[in-house]
């Protein structure tokens, strides 16, 4: 779950005790103008759960209330990475001496958290990594012993920040790591972390991604997250406990398990067709094939359908029963092509044959090819 900048700052950094600029969340140009009147020269920043807002024109400076009104007027209503901008964060500007980068993220190879710090703040860390890899300090953390001030000081050793800045940045890194742990972050990044002209260290931006699997124990902050922007059908899928992703193609897909579903989509593409959706009914969700088929068929672009079952844990007879029921109830006008194997196969094939009068294909590739041709 992504958090928009303002939520990451007000929930995570504030709780961590990491300073951020004075800011106000505004919905209208008039509110933005009032905010600048209250806090002075500011930046006006689009609030969307996506990066690269600056490049998209979603970040502008405003020295006066009038400029804020203009800036907010331009940004509100923009679309950035598919997200309509509904709110802007108006945030006080201050004189910046230097910009750093700080983050905590999982190190897959080390199977542990990793703290990152760079004196090259303000640009994409991938660009820094490509251009000046030596500018990035990395430190793997033993998750059981934690990350202490001494670890932070060791990371900063030799960067020549000076004792005051060293101490202040080390304190921020420790707080950042503690917040990463406390709030079950998948990613917690401050870029830039600014050293102000007056010596204070302030987080000018913040990216926080909450581990979806930890939501059950992070109920306190979950409501501040942006969630995924879902289409109406995707939300309906989520409401039925189904992971449904709506795509732009015309061949509907119903398969069990994430790997098999992706593969069905791939084979559709391989045969020259375009998949209309991803929809997983893996794990316990295999009992929900009736609702699942309803979703696939509600997608207006669908012209034909592939049902591809390969039962292991999931019983193909149970899944086929749901599909047949949904098919009889919805009476869709589109052709459907089956391939059924694994647990419960015989009963499942018999059911489809008798109730729908359809003969499943022996190979899923053949079922897919037929569906792709039918959609043309």
């Amino acid at each position, binding site marked *: 779950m992504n958090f928009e900048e303002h939520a990451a700052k007000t929930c995570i950094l504030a709780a961590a005790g990491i300073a951020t600029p004075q800011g106000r969340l505004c919905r209208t140009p008039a509110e933005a103008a009032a905010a600048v009147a209250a806090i002075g020269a500011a930046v006006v920043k689009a609030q969307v759960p996506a990066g690269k807002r600056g490049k998209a024109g979603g970040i502008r400076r405003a020295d006066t209330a009038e400029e804020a009104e203009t800036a907010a007027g331009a940004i509100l209503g923009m679309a950035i990475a598919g997200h309509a901008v509904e709110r802007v964060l108006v945030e006080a500007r201050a004189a910046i001496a230097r910009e750093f980068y700080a983050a905590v993220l999982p190190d897959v190879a080390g199977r542990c958290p990793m703290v990152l710090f760079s004196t090259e703040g303000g640009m994409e860390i991938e660009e820094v990594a490509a251009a000046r890899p030596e500018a990035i300090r990395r430190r793997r953390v033993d998750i059981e012993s934690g990350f202490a001030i001494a670890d932070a000081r060791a990371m900063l050793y030799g960067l020549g920040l000076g004792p005051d800045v060293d101490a202040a940045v080390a304190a921020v890194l420790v707080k950042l790591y503690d917040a990463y742990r406390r709030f079950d972050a998948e990613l917690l990044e401050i870029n830039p972390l600014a050293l102000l002209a007056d010596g204070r260290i302030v987080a000018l931006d913040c990216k926080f991604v909450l581990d979806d699997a930890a939501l*059950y124990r992070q109920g306190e902050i979950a409501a501040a997250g942006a969630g995924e922007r879902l289409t109406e059908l995707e939300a309906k899928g989520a409401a039925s406990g189904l992971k449904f992703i709506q795509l732009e193609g015309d061949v509907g897909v119903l398969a069990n398990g994430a*790997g098999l579903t992706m593969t069905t989509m791939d084979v559709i593409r391989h045969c020259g067709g375009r998949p209309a959706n991803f929809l997983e009914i893996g794990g316990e969700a295999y009992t929900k094939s009736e609702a699942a088929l309803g979703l696939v068929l509600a997608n207006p672009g669908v012209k034909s359908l592939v049902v591809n079952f390969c039962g292991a844990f999931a019983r193909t007879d149970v899944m086929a029963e749901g599909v047949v029921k949904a098919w009889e109830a919805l009476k869709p006008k589109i052709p459907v092509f089956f391939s059924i194997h694994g647990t419960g196969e015989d009963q499942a094939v018999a059911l489809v044959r008798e109730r729908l009068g359809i003969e499943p294909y022996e190979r899923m590739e053949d079922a897919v090819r037929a569906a792709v041709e039918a959609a043309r």
Partner: protein
Amino acid sequence: MIVRKTDRVLVLGITGRQGAFWTEKMLACGTRVVGGVNPKKAGETQSGVPVFASPAAAQAAVGFDVAVMFIPPAAAREAAVAAIEAGAKLLVVLTEHIPQQDVMRIHAAAARGGTRIVGPNTAGLVTPGECFVGIMPAFNERVFRPGRVGVVSRSGSLGTLVCLELTRAGLGQSAFIGIGGDPMLGTTTRDAVAALDRDPGTDAVVIVGEIGGAMEEEAAEYAALMKKPVAAFIAGAAAPPGRKMGHAGAIVMGDRGSYASKRRALESAGVAVVDTPAEIPTALRRRLP
């Protein structure tokens, strides 16, 4: 991580609906299940197998080599650490959706305890004709047949389809290693490929990969040095970027984890990468001596 019928297996959460169901299946397939754990039902039996209060109690009473977890996500870390501390050599973590920092803590405990982790979010391990640990249809003879092809898969359902295709083509399997759909696994594609490379019962290897992460690229580095032929299928060529495709590990961020990157790496290493699962047997046959 190739399971053998001599391995003593402990089932964590044995009395739950899935734990009980799959314990029956494992026993029926020849797996040497020596006990289960449920603190509330210690002293009872399940499918003729004794239930213990803890992995430590089970280790003391009957001894075990492999532990397999039918445990919900919120209790997974505690259960896993208990099994590791009781001396599990191999821990099969079936559980999906364990919080990532709990996964890190499991891995940290395993590193200290010298335990190999398979998973999280794996469908398990199958040695056809011998035994299996997990939730795979090892008992289904249309899918699994004893043979000499080793299969490594992130996905259970797709791994099943691939084994079905091999069996259909008359190619039996020496071992199926489900490594799991999570992003931070105890056993990587490379680890599993290396194990199959060392296994005298394996003549060829199939990699069933997915978009996301860098495991296929790492495995390619190893495969480049192998003598045994390797074929691969990577799922997710048609997946939209930036979205998790069911598996927490299956997500393309920018260039990272893309289909193209994986295919390029594997092909450079001499691996036969096919477009559909059905092409795997043909691709393998061409390379087998």
